[in-house]
């Protein structure tokens, strides 16, 4: 589904389903929504999965689900984000079932602090990782993170606290 440059929707079913003439069930062209939301979702999925390739696939899948949804979500951006977070969680669960954990490949000559921190983030369990990404990258309040992750705000608070404690321990000299 990805072309060589990593772009989406060049061929295959998605290109047919997301052309400019195709509108979603809320009336707004899906291609327009895709153009405005795709990059942000891709970055979010990259941070949650640690994989550009998987991020592209999951963002694409989220749009497919939006298009296939029978009820028009009022906040389609929020809907996409929720679907995407769930897809990322499912993806990582599938990896876990395979009894292996993928390890992040170091970024090409990134500053060492970035490499070390990124590797530490990738080692966090999904809920903690999602909580720190949504909190510290997307700047979402705990209530909204709880809504996205399907848990209580208190759980988000404890996940963040545990994640930070782990990171502090791993990153301390």
């Amino acid at each position, binding site marked *: 589904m990805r072309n060589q*440059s*990593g772009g989406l929707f060049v061929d295959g079913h998605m290109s047919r389903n997301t052309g400019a003439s195709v509108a979603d069930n809320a009336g707004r062209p899906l291609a327009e929504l895709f153009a405005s939301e795709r990059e942000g979702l*891709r*970055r*979010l999925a*990259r*941070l949650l*999965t*640690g*994989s*550009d*390739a998987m*991020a*592209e696939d999951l963002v694409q899948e989220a749009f497919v689900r939006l298009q296939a949804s029978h009820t028009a979500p009022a906040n389609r951006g929020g809907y996409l984000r929720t679907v995407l977070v769930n897809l990322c969680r499912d993806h990582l*669960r599938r*990896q*876990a*079932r*395979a*009894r*292996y*954990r*993928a*390890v*992040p*490949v*170091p*970024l*090409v*000559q*990134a*500053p*060492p*602090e*970035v*490499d*070390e*921190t*990124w590797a530490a*983030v*990738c080692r966090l*369990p999904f809920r903690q990782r999602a909580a*720190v*990404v949504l909190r*510290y*990258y997307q700047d979402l309040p705990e209530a909204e993170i709880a809504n996205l992750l399907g848990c209580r705000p208190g759980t988000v608070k404890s996940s963040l606290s545990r994640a*930070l404690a782990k*990171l*502090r321990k791993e*990153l301390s000299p």
Partner: protein
Amino acid sequence: MSPMTDTEERLTTTLRYVADLPPGNVEVAPNARPRTAGPSRYALVPRRWLVFVGAVVVSVCLLVAGLVIAGLPGQGTAPGWELISTLNPAWEAVPGSLSLQVGFSLTCTGATTCFASGPNQAVYITRDTGHIWHQVALPGQPISGVQCASPNNCSILTFRESAPPKSDWSWFMSETSDGGRTWSSTRAPSAINVAVLMPSLATGVPSRYGWASVSCATMASCVIVAESVRPPVPSAALFTTDAGRTWAVANLPHRFVPSQIQCFARGQCLSTGFDSTTQTIAVAFSANGGSTWSAARVPDLSGAILSVSCSSLSYCMAVPISFTAAPTTSSVLVSTDGGHSWSLQAGPALPAGGTLWKLSCPVRANCWAMGDNWPVQVAFGGGPDGAFAAATTDTRGPWRSATLPPAVQGTEAVSCPSIGTCFALAWTTTLVLLEYRT
């Protein structure tokens, strides 16, 4: 709102940095390590039984593997390297026993893109894993390999001789910010001529180029190190912070002769080479973009460091080579503090007369090393075992040897952009690209 802690700030910076990287830069190595935490479908089975059963299975596998290996002498224990393409025919005529000063270089920035440079006035790039190679248009012939601070930002040092009767030399630093599609070149400062070139002019023959290397942490901030081949003129470092418009000269540590330089973000640079008086290995480092340099603590070892690879600024591995004799055992140098101090560590097993030449470490302690006995045969009378490759995935070793294609007689360079993705330049009857396939 409470102020952010250091960890929170570092986390925020990292997430933004990773999120803003161009596509294709963030990847995981699937199934690279057994899972150590999290849910398991075997959770109802007591863990000690899993350990016991696992130990039995591993023992049986090791026994079988040992029997297989014992029955197949000469076979490697790791998945193999495959020959995937032949490089430009112009390199066919270049003999394998090259001088140490100007060798071939391979820099791969991803699973499909590699730069290859060599001593015949050419730099080539492939964007399809070696199937098609394009010559890069540069103002001169390469004196250094291509160094990349990121998949898009790369630099190289070249030189050009003017037309007779007045033989003169010009040095250029060429940079790309689009992964090698377009290059911009600036004239390198005249000091580099003093350091490297004058002996050639004196004799009228470029009999010896000397070592030189350039590394750009950013497009604007570059450092060149150049060997003096006319003592007592000292070797020099030249640095710019304005993309080569102006340069300044910095003193390297006394008697230090540089072979390579690698610069990272925030002005951290590392240069490897040797001490010209004691003829022992030496390393110099700078924390301010090359303007001042200090000598690193290194073991007292005869020779020079020709190849160094840093997976991050904190972790580097280097290969010492001997000036005087073929080594009987191999060793590598490891630094875990950004090159300030180095210690010796066991290297891969060498075939008779073999020498370890190059290595590449995509991840901390995960390195591929390559060597051969081709030049050694010429200089020291090496044995017949030819080229070899070995990998380690652990800070304490051990190294596992790997099978190279039978036609390979010598190795020139190795470059691993990530775990599981490695390429090498090697000699058969011509120069070829090898790819490691798991």
